[in-house]
């Protein structure tokens, strides 16, 4: 392979700065194992501050691309720029944050580069023999884990928000900032309006603690039992898919699962949830999972760190009381 054909470096990109910091943390690990550098791509109207920030969170190099057309994420200009850069600088690996925008960007860029892409990866490591990235992803409703590699370069992966802890910010860290002049074309899709989502309930995506309930809760009037526990531990209330979709007891954006919210709290407490794979897939990135269920054979016990076999109507109030006691002892 001649130098021009060589692919080198791990790149990270997310339009969401918090996700970009998480990707840098995983990127450091991968670039270390591959013996290569870690670069971040910053796109925007003005990215000088962002670029410094990306270096302080672990990037060796930042490709800084500034243009008014890149002010906010739009899939066409962003795909154009990322594709052209990948052709010019030939990274070995590109990690993209699996936001809604990141997903559509990754697929469009991968197709234009005629390369493979693995989205929604649950695990990502290095195959030591092939010297390439190897990932696990869940398919068929989360029942099966498929292990894959990408045959072409660059290898593109999307990683979910909240899956990795960012590195500690080091303001003294130094790195190279490469200014890139983008070739931009007019986007065929024009943004004509944006309005914030009115969340009918609480936003569970950013919560540190979630107390979630399923069909084990017998009636809507009993939800305060769950709310009381959530309040005590400074958490929010979530639910399983049937509670939101069939019973409609909570708004649709409050259910956790593969097709609902994928959450990454420090604590996920599942009350009266049997643990359908659809639900489990939504809590893969929770740090600690706890379950309370009357049925000791419920699958949720397989996917929990701590389980109590018991009636949630007794255990949940007892837990609320226990936390209240512990806090008053402080």
């Amino acid at each position: 392979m001649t130098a021009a054909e060589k692919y080198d470096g791990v790149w990270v990109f997310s339009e969401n700065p918090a996700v970009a910091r998480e990707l840098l943390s995983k990127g450091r690990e991968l670039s270390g194992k591959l013996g290569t550098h870690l670069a971040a791509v910053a796109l925007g109207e003005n990215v000088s501050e962002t670029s410094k920030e990306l270096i302080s969170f672990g990037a060796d190099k930042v490709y800084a691309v500034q243009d008014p057309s890149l002010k906010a994420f739009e899939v066409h200009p962003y795909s154009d720029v990322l594709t052209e850069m990948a052709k010019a600088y030939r990274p070995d690996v590109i990690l993209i944050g699996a936001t809604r925008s990141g997903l559509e960007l990754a697929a469009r860029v991968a197709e234009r580069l005629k390369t493979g892409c693995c989205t929604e990866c649950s695990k990502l490591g290095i195959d030591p023999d092939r010297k390439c990235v190897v990932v696990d992803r869940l398919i068929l409703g989360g029942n099966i884990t498929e292990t894959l590699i990408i045959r072409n370069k660059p290898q593109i992966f999307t990683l979910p928000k909240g899956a990795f802890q960012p590195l500690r910010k080091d303001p003294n860290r130094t790195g190279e900032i490469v200014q890139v002049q983008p070739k931009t074309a007019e986007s065929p899709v024009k943004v004509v309006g944006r309005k914030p989502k009115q969340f009918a309930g609480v936003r569970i995506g950013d919560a540190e603690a979630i107390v979630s309930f399923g069909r084990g809760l017998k009636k809507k009037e009993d939800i305060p039992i769950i709310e009381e526990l959530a309040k005590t531990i400074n958490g929010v209330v979530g639910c399983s898919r049937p509670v939101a979709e069939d019973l409609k007891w909570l708004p649709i954006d409050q259910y956790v699962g593969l097709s609902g919210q994928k959450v990454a709290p420090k604590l996920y407490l599942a009350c009266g949830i049997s643990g359908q794979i659809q639900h489990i897939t939504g809590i893969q990135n929770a740090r600690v999972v706890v379950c309370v269920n009357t049925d000791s054979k419920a699958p949720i016990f397989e996917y929990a760190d701590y389980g109590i076999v018991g009636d949630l109507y007794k255990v949940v109030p007892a837990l609320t009381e226990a936390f209240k006691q512990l806090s008053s002892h402080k």
Partner: protein
Amino acid sequence: MPNIIVLAKQVFYTQDLRIDRTNKKLVTEGVARVISESDKNAIEEAVRLKEKLGGKITVLTMGPAQAKEALREAIAMGADEGYMLTGPEFENSDAHATAAALAAGIRKIGQFDVILCGETSEDQYSFQVGPRVAEILNLPQITYAVKITLQDGKALVERSLEDSYETVESKLPAFITVSREINEPRLPTLMAIMAASKKPMTAWTVADIGLKPNELGREGSLTEPLRSAVATGERKRILIQGEPKEAADKLASTLIGEGVVKVT
């Protein structure tokens, strides 16, 4: 009057899939095959657009022989005709090879103003096929639609993002993926399902759409599956014993000890 092509995939009804714990195998026997959920929303949206504006709806699918049922269901919902890409060459295609096949099928169908499909399939959850087809056909890409208006040769689309709704405008033809919240798909009547059998359905092989077998299937894929296994959690699985109060006390101290709960 818009010509609409809808891409739809037949999948196992994932909620009924389960693992046989004795032999650690996926049980697919007796599990229904259905149109993937958001693809069904795409069919419904096409039918609603046709009810308003007229035009024609063509459904394209890729899959084994029984995928014909998906076409029949789509027609029963209100589509006019269906095409399926079928044959052993199409099996084991990844998102890229699938998109290549669908794009070739679309070119063969010919005329269209809008292509619709679901934002992702229920079985693979890759979110890739729509944008990849849009790229191959060099079409404007509009994802996660929750409202579609077609007028004056343009599409006005409201998109659902994490924190916001974004409204975009694009010239036609355009490629649009839809989110599940866009509509509630209708249940076709038995009469409509029976009548659908008489509507035109055409099966195309790899040769019919002008691709080479090595552009499809495992060979034409850019990703390579190394192995697959029953998914297992990597959790501690510690059961906390005792009467409710005793167990709750133990659990509360453990969680505070782990630093995952801060009581104030």
